[in-house]
């Protein structure tokens, strides 16, 4: 690596993949963050970025706080990437009830007001479109029930046009693995280094237990 590259802080360019469905699928709906900032869904939040999206609502006392806690743990692990090339978006399914202030209160009380994590509200029409476009299963029986998608995390990397999803109640390890599947492609050297580290761990495990435990 050149010295200049090593010491320069380069801002990610957030270029979408040529095959990205763009505004046509994501919509460019006008939403509001919990900080009461106006944002365009595709242009400001998705375009060229790696994102994790889930649905929730502020007055929810059952599943939503559990999912939020799970995401806080993931955030802790990926702290150095959050807000740089990885973003979390929690969108309310009750936009008529959840103002930016209500979402901010939710984020604060759940200690989720963390960098790179936005809680979003907007108008019901746009949010329903986004919910169907990102979480739809081409089955009205499932799709019309907003609760069906509350336990799912949608992971998208618009720069590589990679889409995946993971159960929000899966283990932290499983969530991290799913997020890594959508990571930007790594160089040969990086992959070689990672493989060496992994092999060392495997060797250690085999030595300690007689077989590889971490699969």
């Amino acid at each position, binding site marked *: 690596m050149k010295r200049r590259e090593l010491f320069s802080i380069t801002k990610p360019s957030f270029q979408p993949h040529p095959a990205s469905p763009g505004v046509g699928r994501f919509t460019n709906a006008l939403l509001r963050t919990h900080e009461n900032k106006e944002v365009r869904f595709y242009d400001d939040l998705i375009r060229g970025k790696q994102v994790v999206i889930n649905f929730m609502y502020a007055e929810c006392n*059952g599943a939503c706080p559990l999912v939020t806690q799970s995401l806080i743990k993931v955030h802790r692990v990926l702290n150095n990437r959050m807000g740089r090339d990885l973003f979390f978006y929690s969108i309310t399914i009750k936009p008529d009830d959840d103002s930016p202030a209500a979402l901010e209160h939710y984020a604060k009380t759940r200690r989720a007001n963390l960098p790179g994590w936005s809680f979003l509200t907007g108008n019901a029409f746009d949010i329903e479109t986004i919910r169907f476009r990102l979480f739809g299963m081409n089955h*009205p029986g499932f799709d019309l029930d907003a*609760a069906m998608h*509350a336990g799912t995390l949608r992971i998208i990397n618009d720069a590589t046009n990679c889409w995946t999803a993971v159960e929000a*109640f899966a283990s932290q390890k499983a969530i991290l693995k799913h997020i890594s599947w959508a990571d930007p492609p790594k160089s040969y050297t990086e992959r070689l280094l990672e493989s060496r580290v992994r092999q060392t761990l495997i060797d250690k495990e085999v030595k300690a237990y007689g077989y590889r435990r971490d699969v």
Partner: protein
Amino acid sequence: MRISAILCLLFSVLTIKGQQCQLTLAGTWRDETSNDKLYRFDENHNVTVLAGRNSAPIATGRYELDESQPRQISFTDFSDPTVLRIGKRPVTIKSYDDTSITFSIPNYGEVRWSRVDSNRYFIALVARAGEFYDSSGSAFPILTRISPQETVTDAVGTYSNLGQSAFGRVPALAYKEFMREARSDSEVMLRLEINSAQYERAIKVLQTWDRRVREDALLYQYQIPLNNIVLIKAVTETLNACRDDFKLYKLNYIHPEDWISDSYSPQFIPFFYFKELKKLNGPRHVTDEQFRRVFNQSAAMIDKRQ
């Protein structure tokens, strides 16, 4: 085990309420327990009290509801507070539906108002089979408002555009050929008379879907027939938001209760759904003859005015 327990919790706690009955106060109401006194509410929170249908206003004021599913109504700035039988203090709304409101007044009892409307409202659920290449066909709801001044018709759904299936606002030429009784088993038409609140809720659904088509915001971008299923389900279920007025088939995709979605591909579901609704609500079907009579009556009123 842990995950399934959490999922149970998820579904029990995160249940999003479906259609709720919202009080639409705008319009004219008659106090059933008094004489002919009428209360006319507008959307800007103004209320006018009339002694009778054609009388001049006897009092004007403002009203405020505490929320969208209100429990209280308060009247302020009244020009003559004595005309209000329900008093000046906020009054408890005991119950309401599309056509009536019951107030509970301390030391007095209950006061019931019923909605007064000179317009007539209809919904026609029409569908046809064997029209397109895959043997499916047009399927859409038609909403009609007949007032002494005009007749307004709206239709959104799947229709035939030069023999090709199209989805969106149905052109007049396309819906007019369906405004008659079904002529064979490959057609279905159920026409029901509805009230103004049912009409307003149903028209809102149609307007939302019309907007979805115009703004390229369809819920299903590639499986277009699924959009029509969601549309017709919303329109028909909205009719029963305040009370079980019509007998509805449960289009919920749960077998064996919903045998239609289990047996047919999406493009045929509206046709069989309307057939089933026709079977369930047959006695309330408004025939062409009855509909024509209503239409002619309103036309006669227009003639009289002219």
